[in-house]
């Protein structure tokens, strides 16, 4: 499914691009939280009374930055996993771009596996949402 291969000259350097975007996002996000900049209310929560898919995300990230992993996970498991995955990917991207190492590339993805992946994503989103609804109904 995955192969290791060198970056081609004419290819966009995806890892470098991702590293810059993730770094910029992290810097902007941390500055935003650090300076207590305003955060708009969730329109979905305001309209329906239910949390959206990423409600609690800011509190999750605040706790993660403070080193409280368990509390961060409890606020929003999806954001927690996403943030950790992004950090790991940034580390991988930093290493392969700095040392010009071979890159991980998706070689083949048959339709059955693609469908399974799609379903897995939808199930993960739904499970996270159900968890958030229960979590927020208990008062967070």
């Amino acid at each position: 499914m995955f192969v290791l291969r060198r970056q081609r000259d004419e290819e966009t350097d995806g890892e470098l691009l991702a590293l810059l975007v993730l770094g910029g996002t992290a810097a902007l996000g941390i500055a935003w939280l650090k300076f207590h900049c305003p955060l708009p209310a969730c329109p979905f929560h305001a309209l329906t009374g239910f949390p959206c898919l990423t409600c609690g995300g800011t509190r999750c990230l605040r706790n993660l930055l403070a080193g409280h992993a368990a509390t961060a996970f409890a606020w929003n498991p999806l954001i927690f996993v996403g943030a950790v995955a992004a950090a790991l990917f940034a580390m991988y991207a930093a290493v392969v771009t700095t040392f010009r190492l071979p890159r991980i590339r998706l070689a083949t993805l048959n339709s059955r596996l693609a469908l399974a992946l799609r379903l897995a994503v939808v199930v993960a989103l739904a499970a996270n949402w159900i968890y958030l609804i229960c979590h927020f109904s208990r008062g967070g």
Partner: protein
Amino acid sequence: MIHVNRERQNLGQFTPEDVSAGLRSGRFLPTDLAWREGMETWQPLATFTDLPAPDEAVPPTLAPGTEEVLPPIVEVGPVVPEWERRDEVGYFRAALVTIRQTFADPIGTFHRMPRTGGFLWPLIYSYVLQTICALVGLTESLIWVRVLPKSLLTHLGDNPEQALVGNLVFTLPVMLVGGLIFPFLFAGLYYLMLRLITKKSTSYEAVFRAYCYMMGSASIVNLLPMPPIIAVQMVFMVFVIIVAFGYLIVAIREAAEITTLESVAVVVLPVLLCCFCSAALMGGVFAIAGSLPALQGLGH
């Protein structure tokens, strides 16, 4: 798919059959450079010896008495949007024509937009236009606070001018850094939604390019002289969102060749279901409109 390039200008990606037919019709030249998955470097089309032979099948014989119906001849015009031809026509003219093309003919423009050609120039188009328009919008707000009575600007505190200048100091770095990051993040989000919802294997690059051209052009609505009155700006914000989303739905639909319903889902669902997207959207619109104090007290 084969990517075709002429004089550093991307003509798009085509099937081997299209390239073969294009070579016969003169649309492509044997000297045009081309690349496909697995090749190390770009090569002239003349070296593509394995292209399928053009369809030379004899047209089916028509039944007596029936009229021959020929397929319509499709005119292949210059590459659009005009920003792709900036070296030929000049940067200023290219930007102006691109704005006109994206608003006047979004279907044709995004349908014919090259799906490849890099990230840099569409990003520059979007970044420069958004920054200029936002700065003009903020300057307009500063003029407005000198003209309008203070009773209409109570949400900006005792000193509206100082509040707006304070906002500028605060929003400028966010705008300058965010303008470079948000296109990548939003294009990534729409790309993931496309992969999740549809079966089309549209590239991230194509989505990114469509997003940049559309949002860059859409930013000119900020040139409208909107006074920083909370009610006016709320209406203005709704207008901006509707215009930007409407056009973005068309742009993604054409670039990814999906249905309108799928495109609506790709563009609207993330904002409805995700705090971060709606926050980024609302924050961006408020920041551009120069009324960030209006957000105070809305935080959760």
